[in-house]
Every structure is written in C-alpha cells, then in structure tokens.
C-alpha cells in the first residue's frame, strides 16, 4: 500500500519544495546565472541511457519482457501438467523444483511472467492515461473545474487503495488479469493526476506557455504540444511507478485469494504455494523464486525511476564515476569542502624558507592557530615556486 500519498493541496509557493521528494522530480531550471542555466537546460539526448542505474533497470525489464513474450514457448513443461515428481527440490529436470501436483515451478514462473507484465503495463497505461487527462486538464483549466477534479482525485486518495481494489475486484464477474489491471488503474490514477496537476500548474505560468498563448495557439494545442512533452519525465516515472504498484497489487490480490488463481502468474504461484503451505513443508523452492522475480522486476522499475529522476533533476545525478574511481583519485565529493587534487603534488609541500618565520604562532589570542601550526607549515609554501601545472595542461 502506498503510504506517501498526500492530499495536502499545494499552496502555490509550496508547490516546488513539496513536489520534489514526492515525485523525485524537480524542475532544474534554477535562477543561478547563465552558466548554471545552460547546465540545467534540456539535457542532451541519450543521457538517460548513460545512467548506469537506468540501464541496469532497463536490461532487467527487457529480460522480463522477453520472457513474457516467449515464455510459453520456452517453458520446459506445461505449467499445469501434473507429474509424478511431487514436491521435488530444484534439480536439472526441474530448475525450481515441483509443486504438490508435480507441476514444474520454473515453467509456472516463466509462463506466469506474461500475466504479470500484462497486468502491470495495462494498469500502468490506463492509470497514466486517466491521470494525465485529469491532472493536466485540472492543472491547466484551473477554477471550478480544477477544484472538482482535485476533489475527485483526493477522494480516490483518501479511500484506502487495497481494500477498494478488493471490493471492486470482488464485484467483477471474472477476475482475469486484464480486469484486475483495470481495477488497479481505476484506483491508482489519482496520485499521478495530482503530481501532474501541480506540475501543470507551474508549467502554465511558464513564459513559453504564455508565449504560445500570446501567439494565438489553441488551448488544446497548448496542452498537448507545449505542456505535455514537458511532463514526459514525470509521466514516465508515474507510469513506471504505477506498473510497479500494479504488479505488487496483483500479487497481493492473488495472495489473498482474489484474482484468478487459474491463470498463471507469479501471484498465483505464490498463492498456491501458500495454500499448500509450501514453507511449512520445507518446499522453499516453490515460494522463493516467484518472490525474487517480483523483487527483481520491482527493483528494475525502481532503478528506471531513479534514472528518470536523475535525468530530470541533474542534482540527483550521481557524481559521474563510481565511488571506486573517486576513491582512487582521492576525491570525496562534499558540499562546502571542495576536494583539492594536485596532479603534481610532490614538489609543492616544501616550506619556503622566507616564510618559515610566519608559521610560528605569534598571536596567542587566536586559539585556532595553536591547532594549526603543522598544517600551516605544510600549506605555506614557496612564493617563488613556479607554476607547475600549466605546462601539463596546454
């Protein structure tokens, strides 16, 4: 269950600070002179792909997508087929062991990938679509329409999501994957809508939107062509978040027995395992892999979201190189203590003779000095020493 939802209505001045952590997205266009502005402008293309987290996430996701597509063909067994190898631990015949009916757990997981992915993506797409339509419209039109849509979104946020899903899912005649996805979408769009609304609200006041208006663009075009593309990252991260949420919801629903246990997905595998007390019976292989797959998929989605966040908010970007190489160079990035790395350090530590006299603490009034002599000695250096690094650079 998501808990960090907020229905606090952003008062305008709060919009920026409060938005940041929720979405992880901060408009990077600070007011810090031209240099910084330039740095904070639209990042070059493919920067996203350079983010190692995002790449790792995309690779994992692509793997699961592939399995989702080809799963039924590569699964070694029919996931529902019984065999005489009942409740066998993992072996070469059954990579993840077998169930109480002798079904191959590996095949169930491979085949079940599709169900998970479909539900995740259908829910993600639907919820995002609803969220975009309602959020952006509310943010742009303002006034009464905005208030109404906001209340709608907030009501959906106030109502606890999982119970609502349980109730709605309970009403549907059948609980195929897609219906679960629809239910998740119906209950899960509100958060995205809120974030988008807030963002649209701030975009609406941007000059380029004003400029488009002053140029006579139609409202519809302003929303779709001028505003929406600027929300891509937020929409994408909302989408990814919803997919993750939908996957977890599906699995939880399956686990508490709502949802179609006849359709193979990781949740039904877990449900079966739990209903048959796999853990109590020591059949960990039945329970553990599906959970790890979910965790892996969830992690992949989170990593992608990290990537998006960092893409949108350059401040979050990791320091460029991994910690190891920073350590190797002796750099510790810190606020307020810029690292000093001298490529040609050796000759610079000598104390210039004519400065030596200054290094003695002559004035006791400043206690700080007492603690510093060694350092001061090290730092005070030959005035005459010639610039050493210039040649190396040129």
């Amino acid at each position, binding site marked *: 269950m998501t808990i960090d939802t907020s229905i606090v209505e952003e008062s305008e001045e709060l919009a920026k600070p409060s938005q940041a952590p929720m979405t992880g997205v901060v408009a990077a266009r600070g*007011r*810090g*002179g*031209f*240099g910084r502005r*330039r740095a904070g402008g639209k990042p070059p293309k493919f920067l996203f792909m350079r983010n190692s987290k995002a790449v790792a996430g995309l690779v994992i996701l692509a793997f699961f997508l592939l399995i989702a597509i080809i799963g039924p063909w590569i699964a070694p067994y029919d996931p529902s087929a019984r065999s005489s190898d009942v409740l066998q631990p993992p072996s070469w015949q059954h990579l993840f062991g077998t169930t109480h009916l002798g079904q191959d757990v590996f095949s169930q997981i491979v085949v079940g990938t599709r169900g998970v992915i479909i539900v995740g993506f259908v829910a993600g797409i639907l919820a995002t679509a609803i969220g975009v339509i309602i959020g952006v419209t509310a943010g742009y039109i303002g006034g009464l329409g905005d208030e109404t849509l906001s209340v709608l979104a907030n009501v959906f946020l106030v109502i606890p999501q999982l119970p609502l899903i349980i109730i709605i899912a309970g009403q549907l005649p059948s609980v195929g994957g897609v219906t679960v996805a629809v239910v998740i979408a119906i209950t899960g769009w509100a958060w995205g809508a809120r974030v988008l609304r807030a963002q649209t609200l701030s975009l609406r006041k941007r000059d380029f939107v004003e400029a488009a208006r002053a140029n006579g663009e139609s409202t519809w075009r302003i929303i779709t062509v001028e505003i929406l593309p600027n929300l891509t990252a937020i929409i994408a991260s909302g989408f990814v978040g919803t997919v993750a949420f939908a996957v977890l919801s599906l699995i939880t629903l399956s686990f508490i027995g709502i949802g179609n246990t006849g359709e193979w997905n990781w949740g039904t595998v877990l449900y079966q395992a739990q209903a048959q007390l796999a853990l109590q019976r020591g059949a960990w292989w039945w329970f553990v892999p599906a959970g790890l797959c979910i965790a892996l998929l969830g992690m992949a989605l989170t990593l992608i979201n990290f990537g998006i966040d960092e893409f949108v908010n350059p401040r979050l970007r990791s*320091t*460029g*190189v991994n910690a190891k*190489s*920073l350590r190797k*160079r002796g*750099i510790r*990035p*810190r*606020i*307020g*203590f*810029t*690292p*000093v*790395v*001298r*490529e*040609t350090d050796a000759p*610079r530590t000598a104390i210039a003779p004519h*400065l030596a006299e*200054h*290094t003695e*603490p*002559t*004035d006791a009034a*400043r206690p*700080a*000095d007492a*603690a*510093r002599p060694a*350092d*001061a000695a*090290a*730092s*005070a*250096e030959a005035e005459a020493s010639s*610039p*050493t*690094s*210039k040649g190396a*650079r*040129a």
Partner: protein
Amino acid sequence: MTLTTPETGARRAPADDPVLEIRNLSVDYGYDDDPVHVLRDVSLTLGRGEVLGLAGESGCGKSTLAYAATRLLPPPGLITGGEVLFTGRDGRKTDILRLDDQSLRESRWQDLAIVFQGAMNSLSPVYRIGRQIADGILAHRPGMSKADAMARAAEMLELVGISPDRLRSYPHQLSGGMRQRVMIAMALALEPQVLIMDEPTTALDVVMQRQIVEQIAELRDRLGFSVIFITHDVSLLIEIADRIAIMYAGEIVEDAASLDVYQRPRHPYSSALLHSFPPLRGPRRELTGIPGSPPDLAKLGGGCHFRDRCAFAWDACAALAPRLTAPDVADDDPRRTTACLRHEPERVAAAGFEAKPVPAELAG
C-alpha cells in the same frame, strides 16, 4: 564618500600588503576523465583594505574563482592546483587549500566571509534571521552566550540599517534588499578581513542596488576589510572598486586600477566590454558590442580564447597563449597587467610570428 580614490598613485599597491593571494588556481568541473577546465592558473592578489572588482561576462568563471578560493565550490567542482594564501592580521600566511576540515571551519567567516548573489537563497527559510546570524557567531566564539550572540546580531543589523526588531523575522518576511543587507550583516558579524561578494546586487533594481553599494562602502570605511566584488556590470564596478580584474573564459585578461580600466583599457575584451553598454549621461557614444559568443569552456583550444571575437587578432593569437604582463604602453601604471599578445611583442617575435603593435584604441 566614494570608494575610489581618484588618484591612482595614492592607493596602496596590492602587493605591498596583500591579504589574499590566489596563485595559479586551477579548477575543473567533473570528476570523470573528461572534466571541464574552468579556471586555468588564475592568479589574483587582494590588498588589505582594497576593493577589488571582478568583471567579465556570464559564465567566464567569476563565481567559480570566488567559491574555489573559499573551497565552497559544489560538486562536481574540483580544485586541481594552485594555492590561496591568506595573510592574517599577524602576518601569518596560511594556504586555505591545504587546511584540514577543522582548521578550515575555524578560519571561515572570521578570516574571510562571502555574500552570495541570491540573498533569497542564502538564508534558510525556516529559521529567523537572528538565529542565522547568531549561529555563525557562536560557532566561532564557543564561550559566548546565546543572548550575547543575539545582541551582537542586533548590533550588526543596525549597522546595515535594519531595525533590530527584525531579528525575529523570517527571511520571507523581508524584501530582497533587506535580505541582502542581512547577508552583509551576517558576513560582517565576525569582522572578517576579506569579504567576497558574488553579484550581491544583480537581482535588485537600481535604487536598491545603490543603497546596498553605499552601505558596503560605508562599512568598509568603518571596519577596514577588503572586498572582492563580483559582477558583470562594469559601470558599477568602476564606481566602487579600487582595482578591477577582467575575466574572460576562465582567465584574467586585465588587472588594473578601476579608472585605468575604464579610461585606458589595454585588452581588446575590456575595451569591447566598455563599448557594450550605453552611457546614461554625456554624449551618446558609439556602441560596438562584442561580436560572436563566448567560447565553450569544455572545448577550449590553445592560443588566445578571445581571438575569434577580437578585432585585433592575427595568426599569432591562434598559436600563442597570452600571458599576464605589464602593458606595452609607455607611462602606464607599472602594476597593471593585461594578457594580450599585442602587449607581448618579444614573445610573439620569439615564437616566429610577426609582432604587431598595440593599436591606438588600446594605448589611449
């Protein structure tokens, strides 16, 4: 009442009694294999009691210089060489870049304080300004009581012309000008010897700017600190600074007394800069502007970086990097320097290029 002493000679030369010497400071942005070399061997000296103006167009590295000199450059800034020598009242020199964390913390704010461009962002929005002034004091005067620190904060506020009952205000309750003054009060609380001000008035309108500038001048006269004043508004600098250093693309290209810079620029860039803004009074002079745009610091080649935009560039400029030297003009103040090959005929000749004379515009 002016900051500038009109006669150049009467000013103390910076080298005589320097309070801050920046030597060969080099700064990179980026920790990876392909960093941007933003500052390359920049040297600058600030004399005691002097107001040093640092001008140059946006993005040329003025702020970087100020932050690097105080080691406040945010990641991914990296200082790759040079030293920043601070000379205390007792004459002891310390290299700020070599101080350990503890000593650096102790040195900060007492020796050298800094005022940033946006006062809005320089004050934490959640604390009352009194507290923000006082905690800087308390950090360096451990024995001081809170009440005393507050009293000192009140005193400082009064000094900058804000009523002490504003101590209990939050930053957002103050206007931009007041916030900027609060920052100045905060910076002066420990009576530092050096005050670095990075575009302290850019966000304000002219009337407010005038007030702040006057405030600084008055305080300097009273307290006798030195100031590095950063802006790209040259006309403002000419008014308030004793000496001006003009930066271009991460390097200092001219360093001279302010009236000298204004009336007798020696570097083509300084000269062009002075012809880029219209005068408010007097004859409408011709404005030439500077053609082209500043180079990308990430892709700097050799030679003079200004050559593409320079009216006096010739083939030597692409090959030789100019050095800061005394201008090749007779009767010039010997302490002024400029980095232009037109003033380095010997070097040009030595490198096998045709040595060209200083054009009249740069020798006036």
